[in-house]
């Protein structure tokens, strides 16, 4: 599969801050690729490096095999959906969408036809004459998407485009974006700090931390086999066990992760392929589809345990704080991790 975007040892420093630090990524053509990380982790800078708003200090960026260094944004075959949408307030929706075609010299009749087509694609047919200020946040987001897609870019960059929408609308747009990407076959590079969003939409996800990439993998592997302590704790909820207890339970002093929903509470004796611990229930939170327990082991280690409130385990609801319980999990549910070193020198 050909590469859409390739980073080789790319660094970008702002003053003292290494925003992007020796990052190498290969993004495949036609892939839905997410860059996930907390704010300030370098994911947006990577996006801006691809768009051409930033230039790397070191390393090389290739877009469809062509070295991007020194190529200004307006000569790159990529388009961006901005976090604040960046719609032109003095133009109506149609002119906003047709802007890219206009500056490339496409005739008025054709660019209006294509703008209307793009509007229909994002389910906003008939909104062409409105000004951006007359649209809701969700509608503006769709216009921004149409404005980028009407140029038929080979790579579409999305900078936290759903961040400003409310939950229901965000979930709906996640589905629509994914569908659109499959339909058009364009490479989508999606920046987000929302791990649920990244997991549910992407073919592959790169997890960023302090300007570096911790892991690049499919959503399933990222969740089931996190490589580092940072990934285990940032993607979903995880219990990271370290030191003596790790050696005792997993046979190795390396930290390991165990997901809350992979732990079972109950008196039933453990099989040979299971690990069993006991402790005191600290806190019980009823969350509807599941109940979350805070369990303090005899070693002092805190474990978060999540039990589904399905019809098959009605007893899960009867445990109360202050109660002593047994917990067990399969050995293969433990994933050994590399400790993410907090490099204080930076």
């Amino acid at each position, binding site marked *: 599969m050909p590469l859409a975007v390739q980073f080789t040892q790319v660094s970008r420093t702002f003053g003292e801050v290494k925003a992007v630090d020796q990052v190498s990524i290969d993004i495949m053509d036609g892939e839905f690729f997410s860059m996930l990380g907390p704010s300030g982790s370098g994911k947006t800078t990577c996006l801006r490096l691809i768009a051409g708003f930033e230039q790397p200090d070191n390393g090389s960026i290739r877009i469809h095999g062509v070295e991007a260094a020194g190529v200004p*944004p*307006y000569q790159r075959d990529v*388009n*961006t959906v*901005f976090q604040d949408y*960046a719609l*032109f307030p*003095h133009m109506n929706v149609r002119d906003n969408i047709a802007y890219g075609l206009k500056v490339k010299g496409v005739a008025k009749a054709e660019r209006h036809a294509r703008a209307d087509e793009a509007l229909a694609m994002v389910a906003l047919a008939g909104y062409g004459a409105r000004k951006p200020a007359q649209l809701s946040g969700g509608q503006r987001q769709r216009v921004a998407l149409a404005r980028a897609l009407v140029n038929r870019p080979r790579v579409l960059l999305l900078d936290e485009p759903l961040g400003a929408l409310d939950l229901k609308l965000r979930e709906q747009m996640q589905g629509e974006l994914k569908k659109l990407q499959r339909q058009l076959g364009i490479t989508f590079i999606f920046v987000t700090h929302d791990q649920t969003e990244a997991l549910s939409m992407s073919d592959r996800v790169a997890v960023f931390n302090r300007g570096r990439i911790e892991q690049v993998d499919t959503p399933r592997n990222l969740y089931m086999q996190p490589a580092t302590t940072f990934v285990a704790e940032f993607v979903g909820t995880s219990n990271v066990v370290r030191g003596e207890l790790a050696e005792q339970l997993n046979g190795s002093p390396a930290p390991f992760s165990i997901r809350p929903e992979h732990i079972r509470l109950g008196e039933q004796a453990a099989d040979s392929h299971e690990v069993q611990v006991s402790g005191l229930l600290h806190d019980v939170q009823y969350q509807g589809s599941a109940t979350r327990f805070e369990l303090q082991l005899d070693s002092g280690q805190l474990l978060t345990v999540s039990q589904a409130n399905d019809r098959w385990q009605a007893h899960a609801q009867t445990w109360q704080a202050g109660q002593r319980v047994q917990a067990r999990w399969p050995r293969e549910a433990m994933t050994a991790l590399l400790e993410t070193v907090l490099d204080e020198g930076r």
Partner: protein
Amino acid sequence: MKARLANPGPLRRFANLLYRRPNLYLTLLLIPPLTWFGAIYLGSLLNLLWQGFYTFDDFTMAVTPDLTLGNFAALFNPSNFDIILRTLGMAVAVSLASAVLAFPIAYYMARYTSGKTKAFFYIAVMMPMWASYIVKTYAWTLLLAKGGVAQWFVQLLHLDGLLQALLTVPGIGGSTLSTSHLGRFMVFVYIWLPFMILPIQASLERLPPSLLQASADLGARPGQTFWQVTLPLSIPGIAAGSIFTFSLTLGDFIVPQLVGPPGYFIGSMVYAQQGAIGNMPMAAAFTLVPIVLIALYLSLVKRLGAFDAL
């Protein structure tokens, strides 16, 4: 503590009253400025304009309160209308030139400076306003005089032929730079330039950088981004600045007296009518001219959509 709450002092009682009656609070706040603006400012202006309807007797030099439209009709006498056209032409030229000169400075201030550099530019732009306006105008008469710095510099560049040619053009020229329309225009542009720079700078500062990036991202070259995005969105600032330069030029009465060829401007005409001649009604009629012109200008600018992006 409890006792104080149970039996509050007069100040606290007053504060509580204002808290319960927000409209009373607002009224108290607005009475002083509204009195000033309404009664003293607007009242005296309307009173002045009203005097434009009074009659001035050319023989007795006395003003009588006999109402007439004669003063306003007299504005359209060829000699008076010339004054209006001359002033209007200068105001338009000064506003255009100020906008062209101010834009790059404002753009640089808004997009490329921050912290100390920005403070430096603010001070540099405003510093000329700290000096007396009359002193600056007199200084310009010396700069532009025959044998002055301006002439010396033009000679240094071997452009005196060009300057002489310019000075023979009617409507621009004059016998020397300091008695030419061109010289008067230069002084006006110099004096009003800060009033154009600051509003444009403010409008460019409000322009989100992401809009310019979006434009580039969609394939617009820097020039296209300027004409399609930057300039249209800074029009409100240019309009605000031009309202200053336009109205200040329309009302000025000192620069036309000190620099440039003989001949009245609206401001100096008002000054002459009211001071030397004592024809208050005609002065009042002339006062109406800039008000009407600025009202027309504002409606024109509004129709062009300059305030749509506000």
